[in-house]
């Protein structure tokens, strides 16, 4: 593994010095050329806030001098509901966290519960999980790129191409799990249904054709001079700040930190696959965009390996039980590398059918920590692009 570029703090700094908050790094000038500051509330209904996110932006001309994110417009009490329902009953709710990637949410939750209960998973189920997770990653990244370009001002074209491809994946999800978006597929100790060879064949065909789509997509987008001008050098995030602020996922790697939970934890059967983790050098919006594109190419590799190696067998541990599932008292934190970053579930069991504490560590919630740092000194037009490149889904930001 190459050494990630993490600058280690040389001295032992005072806690007060450590507060790396960006309070007024850009100071508004008040003289005859600069009038009053303009406070604009972007959202909760705004075409580019990806749902009901809200940013209270203070502008000097078009330059942002202050940005305060406001959350909670989609706070639908996920954790409270999780504590009031059974372990199994929370599974369909996890679909609705990051509603673009229900399969990875399912897996993260199943992983946490399996850790909590010491539940083994059959090998075929592990493969199925990897296949579904990587498909989800493809879908998510594709859509993210589409949404990002929408924020950049295209008239939906990249988004519609992405959704055209997404439909093919969604069809496969649907034919396996029964639902287009809310798959509710993983169970504690395996998966709900055993994919048929035809299904795997269809995935294989789709995956093999995917690089062709990706090439066309890149031809449309990557070299575009306007894209380069709009994204390069915009919204830079330094590796130190990224680590400090707990950024994960492609956003962290765009900043040059080679941390991927698939490699670091090696959960599931990821150590068996040969794939690379792309890392950026600038940490700007363009790097964040390219991380997604490159990760899609790596995901295709993982998928091809997984589809080649998948063994036959059951997908459900015979000892696992659906009803009356009561793990022993204890706690567990399970996390996986979701498409948006580290998605983790923290569960405390007191031996009853409901968890005592059910906590979701949502990647996009934490990734938003640095939104102000990245936007300060940039224009409004940049702020929506930066927000788009963070890749948030409000379902998991507000939970």
């Amino acid at each position, binding site marked *: 593994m190459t050494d990630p570029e993490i600058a280690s703090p040389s001295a032992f700094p005072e806690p007060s010095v450590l507060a790396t908050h960006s309070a007024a790094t850009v100071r508004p000038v008040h003289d005859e050329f600069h009038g009053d500051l303009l406070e604009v509330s972007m959202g909760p209904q705004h075409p580019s806030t990806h749902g009901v996110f809200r940013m209270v932006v203070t502008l000097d001309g078009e330059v942002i001098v202050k940005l305060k994110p406001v959350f909670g417009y989609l706070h639908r009490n996920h954790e409270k509901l999780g504590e009031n329902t059974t372990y199994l009953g929370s599974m369909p709710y996890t679909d609705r966290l990051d509603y673009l990637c229900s399969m990875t949410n399912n897996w993260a939750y199943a992983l946490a519960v399996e850790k909590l209960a010491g539940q083994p998973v059959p090998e075929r189920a592990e493969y199925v999980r990897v296949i579904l997770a990587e498909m989800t990653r493809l879908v998510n990244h594709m859509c993210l790129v589409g949404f990002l370009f929408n924020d950049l001002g295209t008239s939906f074209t990249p988004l519609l191409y992405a959704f055209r491809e997404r439909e093919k994946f969604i069809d496969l999800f649907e034919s396996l799990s029964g639902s287009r978006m809310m798959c509710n597929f993983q169970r504690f100790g395996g998966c709900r249904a055993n994919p048929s060879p035809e299904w795997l064949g269809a995935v294989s065909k789709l995956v093999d054709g995917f690089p062709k789509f990706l090439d066309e997509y890149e031809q449309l987008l990557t070299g575009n001079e306007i894209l380069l001008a709009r994204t390069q050098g915009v919204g830079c995030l330094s590796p130190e700040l990224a680590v400090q602020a707990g950024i994960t996922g492609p956003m962290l790697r765009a900043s040059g930190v080679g*941390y991927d939970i698939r490699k670091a934890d090696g959960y599931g059967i990821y150590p068996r696959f040969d794939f690379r983790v792309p890392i950026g050098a600038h940490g700007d919006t363009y790097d964040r965009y390219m991380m997604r594109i490159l990760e899609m190419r790596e995901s295709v590799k993982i998928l091809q390996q997984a589809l080649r190696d998948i063994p036959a067998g059951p997908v459900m541990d015979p000892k696992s039980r659906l009803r009356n599932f009561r793990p022993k008292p204890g706690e567990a934190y399970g996390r996986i590398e979701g498409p948006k970053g580290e998605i983790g579930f923290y569960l405390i069991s007191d031996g009853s059918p409901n968890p005592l504490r059910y906590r979701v560590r949502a990647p996009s919630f934490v990734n938003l920590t*640095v939104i102000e740092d990245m936007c300060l000194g940039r224009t409004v037009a940049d702020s929506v692009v930066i927000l788009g490149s963070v890749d948030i889904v409000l379902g998991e930001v507000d939970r």
Partner: protein
Amino acid sequence: MENLEQIRDRLLARFPGAEVTLINNPGPSAQHSLLLGLAQAREIALFLRDDPALRLDYCSNATGIDWPAKEFTDVVRTPVKDAAGATLRILEEKTKRVTPGFLEVVYHLYSMEKKHGPVVIRLRTGNRTDQVTVPSLTPVWRSCDFQEREIFDLYGVNFEGHHDLRRILMWDGFKDHPMRKDYVAPDDYEWEPTPHGAVLEKAKAHYPAPPPATVP
């Protein structure tokens, strides 16, 4: 990575007088945790972050837990024996004991540099009403920023030293801390066609006539 006992011992050596307790996790996950005293929590957190062997530079998850006061009934059974030593009957003495409730904040720490973890640290408040202040670890790990605000919002834990402690998910004028176990949701029951459980209780309260359970 060293195990938690070693970390604890090192912490105790480095910070004499600090309270560091190891809390065992009985479950199969075996993710044990360190309970830190509030007085030196931030220094210890800094040490954990910057110690070259640990380098826990990444705080993944910060969350609150509500432990309401628990009532235990201890039963002491003393057999009453006759002279021969045979048990005549067993005297049961029941004593009620209330463990005071508290709020807890849990941090899951990982190292991005060394790629190890998790190390779980916990902070506990004195009770659930007036002693709910813990030191904020946001100055140490900025990733705690929003998560601590969320804990403040939903659990009512006060973080000392947090730069921007406001409600994050609920609106500003909201008074309650809804994730606490004893939180009662506003009674907006109006019409539930399929009531059962707690909702049925509400339905009964709202429609005092016999519960909706007969043929249309």
